[in-house]
Every structure is written in structure tokens, then in C-alpha cells.
């Protein structure tokens, strides 16, 4: 395509053609590639997006079929949908925990002193916590919800006064060693948040809180 327009207008027309969507594959890809390296051109594109955005109202609304969200969640989180199948997951997890409890009971030396189940309304996640105060070990298990594909779980002690204290990061089921300064007892509140890989960068929870629970004597 030969151009008789002066360059700024030619660039602006190209940006408009890109936003309209009329270019063929080769030209479209070239324009998208240019926007990645040429900031001025990228700005022209976003100005045209704003110029034309009010045409968006002409699209109206069409509810998508239900299975689309199920597929999105499966691809992003590898998890079944929250409702419906959730009770199966929770049921299976409970069976595993009960079996674990049974095995624990047969071995007196590792019996925990404190337990909690962490969950939250509207959250797909549930965790169990078992604390052995003598060995200063804390066992975490993921009962429901998917392991994060991007990031990690972090367990927090929420004191009545003061800032949450990190007890460590874990994947789906891990034993955490309690630091010497950590004091856990019946009625201590624990919470799990989702944090970037390696744990909260700030030392305080930054991601969403997935589950909360209170420790109780076994």
C-alpha cells in the first residue's frame, strides 16, 4: 500500500485501522508488533480505542452458557467448579483426614495437642491444622480447593493485638517448624492467605485471605 499522507497522519490512520480491525493478518501482526516497541504508536492505538469506545454500547448483552466458566476455571486453577462437585471433594478430604486421625491415634508419640479447621464463607478453600507443642511441629493439610499455580499458601497467627505473624509458607500439605518466639494455644486464631511464590514480600499478608479458624485442644 503506497501512502501519500504525511507520516504522522499515516501512523494515525494505521493505528485507527488496527483498532477498527480491518487489516489483514500480516499487517495486523506487524502493527501489534510495532506497538510493543514503539511507545508513540502504542499511544495512538490507545487514543483510537478511546475515540471509538462508545460504539461498544451497540454490542448489547448475551449471557454465555454455564460450561464456559467451568472450562476457564479448569484451565486456570485445575479445579472442579466450586458448587456441585465441591461436596465430593470435601467428603473425600474428610475421609482422608478421618483415616489420618485413626492412624495418629494408633501412634501416641505423634498425637497433636491442638487442632483447627480453617475455612471461610464463599471460599473454595479448607485446611486442617494439627499442632504438636512438644516437637514444635505444625501439620497443614489442604482439604478443599486447588493448589495455587502461581504463588503459595502462607499461614498466619492473628494475635488479638498487633500484626499477623507468619508461621511459614506451604504447598498442599507440609509440616512447619514453629519458630521459638511463636506461642500457640487453644483459642489462637490462624489464617491462610495466598501470597506470591516465596511468601509475602512485606512480612504482612498481601493476598486474599482464603480461610480462617481457631485452634482447640484435642
Amino acid at each position, binding site marked *: *500500500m503506497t501512502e501519500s*499522507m504525511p507520516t504522522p*497522519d499515516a501512523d*494515525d*490512520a494505521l493505528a*485507527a*485501522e488496527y*483498532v*477498527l*480491525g*480491518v*487489516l*489483514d*493478518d500480516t499487517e*495486523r501482526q506487524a502493527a501489534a508488533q510495532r506497538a510493543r516497541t514503539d511507545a508513540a504508536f502504542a499511544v495512538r492505538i*490507545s487514543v*483510537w*480505542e*478511546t*475515540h*471509538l*469506545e*462508545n*460504539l*461498544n*454500547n*451497540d*454490542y*448489547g*448483552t*448475551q*449471557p*454465555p*452458557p454455564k460450561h*464456559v*466458566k467451568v*472450562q*476457564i476455571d479448569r*484451565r*486456570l*486453577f485445575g479445579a472442579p467448579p466450586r458448587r456441585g462437585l465441591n461436596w465430593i471433594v470435601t467428603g473425600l478430604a474428610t475421609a482422608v483426614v478421618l483415616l489420618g486421625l485413626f492412624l495418629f491415634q494408633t501412634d501416641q508419640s505423634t498425637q497433636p495437642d491442638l487442632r483447627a479447621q480453617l475455612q471461610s464463607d*464463599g*471460599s*473454595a478453600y479448607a485446611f486442617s491444622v494439627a499442632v504438636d507443642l512438644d516437637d514444635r511441629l505444625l501439620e497443614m493439610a489442604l482439604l478443599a480447593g486447588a493448589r*495455587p499455580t*502461581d*504463588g503459595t499458601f502462607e499461614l498466619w497467627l492473628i494475635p488479638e493485638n498487633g500484626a499477623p505473624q507468619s508461621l511459614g509458607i506451604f504447598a498442599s500439605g507440609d509440616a512447619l517448624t514453629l519458630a521459638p518466639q511463636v506461642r500457640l494455644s487453644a483459642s489462637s486464631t490462624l489464617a491462610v492467605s*495466598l501470597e506470591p511464590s516465596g511468601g509475602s514480600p512485606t512480612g504482612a499478608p*498481601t*493476598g*486474599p485471605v482464603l480461610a480462617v479458624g481457631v485452634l482447640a485442644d484435642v
Partner: protein
Amino acid sequence: MNRTQPAQPDLESLIARIALRDRRAFDQLYADASGRLFAVALRIMKDRAEAEDVLQEAFIRIWQKSDSFRPGQAKAISWLITIVRNLAIDKLRARQMPVAPMEMAQDIADENPTPEVEASNTEVRAQLDACLEELEVNRAEAIRSAYIEGYSYQELAARFDTPLNTIRTWLRRSLLRLRNCLEQTSP
């Protein structure tokens, strides 16, 4: 800002929370915006299964790229629709799909504009309409239909029964006239 539903988080804050990997915000955004985004995908793809694929890709991109949203630069709904339009048009162009029959384009999408959005944008929309009206009728129509339906130059040429290079020349001129008009009349 007048907020009609203060209890509901707006799309901007949902996108910000998605950038923090908040799945509940993601679910809420899907509930709030998927209808508008699916309408866009359907209108451009003109095929339900393909529109579903585009919607799926779009939400995966939204989850992954939510940190690139800049609230000061774009309206949240425009940012979301741009993601869907770009995915849909990329997909069509990648295989140079043949021109879709006109009747399909018409029965597929809901013609009703989203009422609350339309009301809030009446003024800006009037400005765009006024500037489109300054163009010849078929040129305004070409711009509008290219944007809404995702037509390529090839398809516009067939539709307006005009050689591709002619269409391209007058569309580019019309776009620049539209720009000049919008920039003159904007406050």
C-alpha cells in the same frame, strides 16, 4: 461520581483485586461482565462455539494480565472489550475466514444497548455520532460496521461492492476526518 449500586464493587476494583490473585473477584467480574463480553465475541465470530472459545481465552488473559490495566488510561469495560475484540479479530484474520452471510450477523446478537451504560455515555456518544454524521453515510456505516462486526477490508470491499484499495483510501481519510472532528469538539 454518582454510584447507583454502592454495595457492589466496580469493575476497576475487581480488576485490581484480580491482579492480587483474588479468585472471588475473578468470579464476580465474570458474573458482572461475561454477558457483555460474550455479546462482543458472538457478534464478531458469528458462531457460538467459536465465541465461547474467544470468551474463554479472554478470561484467561484477564486473569494473567490484570496487572497491566491502568485505571486512569481506560475505562474498565473498554479494556475488557478490547481484549475480546483483539482476540476475536486475530483469530478471524489468522485464517482469513470467508465473508459471513449478512442474515447470520443480524440474528445472532442482541440489538438492545445496555441501558445504564447507554445513559451514562449519552453525551460522549452524541459527540461520536455527530462526528460520524459529518461523514458520507456509507463511510460512517463502514466504520461502524467494521468496528462492531469485525469486518476486514476484504469483507468491506465485497459488502460495499467497491475495490479494496478504493475502500481503504476513503476509509483512512474518513477516519482522519473523524479524529479531527472529535478532537475539535472535545472539551
